[in-house]
């Protein structure tokens, strides 16, 4: 009699443990996604500074600068869906990359203290975004593992937890940035 009760209590405790673990994993995904958002905002804030510093030197790059201003405005407007967000992100990254490549043609700009500091900050934010993406993928993998593996998969299907998607780098970005293509001859 007592034996049965003890077993029942242990089973309940075990289920609570699994339940909490699942919730924790789900929340971790949300948490890291929040970090990504915060870092993206940091990048957006750097863009206007970049434009002011670069504008005086890069007289021939007007198109690029206009493009980035336009993309940034869209990104901070807040009226875009999550999918559009990701797409926008990739576009911004590409144009930013193009600007940095174009800087190579302006030795005065390259030596400018303001620009160098800005470049450092941009490199930093890009790496932090990359780190956040990796952390997000790790959190999602952990969560997906719990949703699919036994015994948590039973609980997961009861709670209607679905698999989440990891951040994928689109093929476009994987290929080396073709500077000429970017400048649009």
């Amino acid at each position, binding site marked *: 009699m007592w034996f049965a009760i003890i077993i029942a209590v242990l089973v309940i405790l075990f289920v609570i443990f699994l339940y909490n673990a699942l919730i924790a994993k789900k929340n*971790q995904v949300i948490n*890291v996604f929040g*970090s990504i958002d915060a870092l993206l905002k940091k990048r957006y804030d750097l863009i206007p500074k970049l434009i002011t510093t670069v504008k005086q030197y890069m007289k021939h790059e007007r198109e690029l600068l206009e493009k980035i201003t336009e993309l940034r405005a869209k990104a901070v407007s807040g009226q875009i869906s999550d999918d559009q967000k990701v797409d926008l992100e990739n576009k911004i990254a590409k144009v930013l990359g193009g600007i940095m490549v174009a800087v190579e043609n302006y030795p005065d700009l390259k030596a400018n203290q303001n620009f160098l*500091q800005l*470049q*450092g*900050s941009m*490199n*930093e934010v890009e*790496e*932090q975004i*990359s*780190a*956040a993406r*990796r*952390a997000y*993928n*790790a*959190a999602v993998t*952990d969560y997906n593992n719990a949703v699919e593996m036994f015994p948590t998969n039973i609980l997961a299907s009861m709670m209607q937890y679905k698999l989440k998607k990891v951040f994928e780098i689109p093929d476009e970005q994987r290929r080396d940035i073709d500077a000429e293509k970017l400048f649009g001859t």
Partner: protein
Amino acid sequence: MKTLEELENFYKTNLLPELLELEERRKKLLKKYFVIALGPICIVAVGIFILTKYLNLISEIIFFVLAPCVIATVVICIFITRGYVRDFKILVIDQIVRFIDENLTYYQSRFIPRSVFVASQIFKTKPNRYKGDDYVNGKIGDTQIQFSEIDAKYESGSGKNRSVKTVFKGLFFIADFNKNFKGQTIVLPDAAEKLFGHFGKLLQSWNLVRDQLISLEDPEFEKLFVVYGSDQVEARYILSTSLMKRIIDFREKTNRNMYLSFVGSKVFVAVPYTRNLFEPRIFKTVVDFEPIKEYYEDLLLAVGIVDDLNLNTRIWSKN
């Protein structure tokens, strides 16, 4: 980077004269050992003779005569060796350090302070028997570095229950890291994963003493190391894919279980050694090139960490 040939030339022109002098001192030292040992040996021999022949009190009294003589001999020998060792280091090791890089300074008896050792958070046991020597500091390129040999032990209990555990013995290295960060990230050699695989990982994540477990994507890195950190994103910012590869390569180069930590915008590297580094030979000749090469390679290993971990690449907001 200096070549081996340059080292040999340096050895021939700058070191050889000092080494020859030191060789003379070494030989004198050995003679002194002999003489010092001679006294007690005679006493012991006579003592044993007398005691066994005339008094028949063999075991205990032999012990009372033998042991103090041996101990006294050893202590005196250690004492007179110190001067030789110190002078050797000041004349030879110091030169090798400056040969490697002019911006480095060698201090024979200084060492990384215990507070700094503990602040690295690599070893959770705080050592109560802490000593070291052979301290070097300076700048390699843009990176400020310091390192020394450390022998840290933890002694517990007293009398019969006394036990001494080695916390860390080897080379302890500190450098400015090339990125800014706020929390801490600790990289330890991974025993559990090797033994227990997936289950080992689960056990590691339950660790109560450390921060949260950070699972990284590089499978080779994960096999060798386990990472704990205060922040998942920051740990990955520090441990970029390229840095992870560099750490793996460095570990292969040293072939030792190294420990790293990233705390207070600095990187700490602990490379365990069982032997004492930079010690002069006493019972073999010191004039050879072989030991010089060994000192050089040991120093180069430490100094080379800057290049191995690419610390002089400063393209972020820290300079």
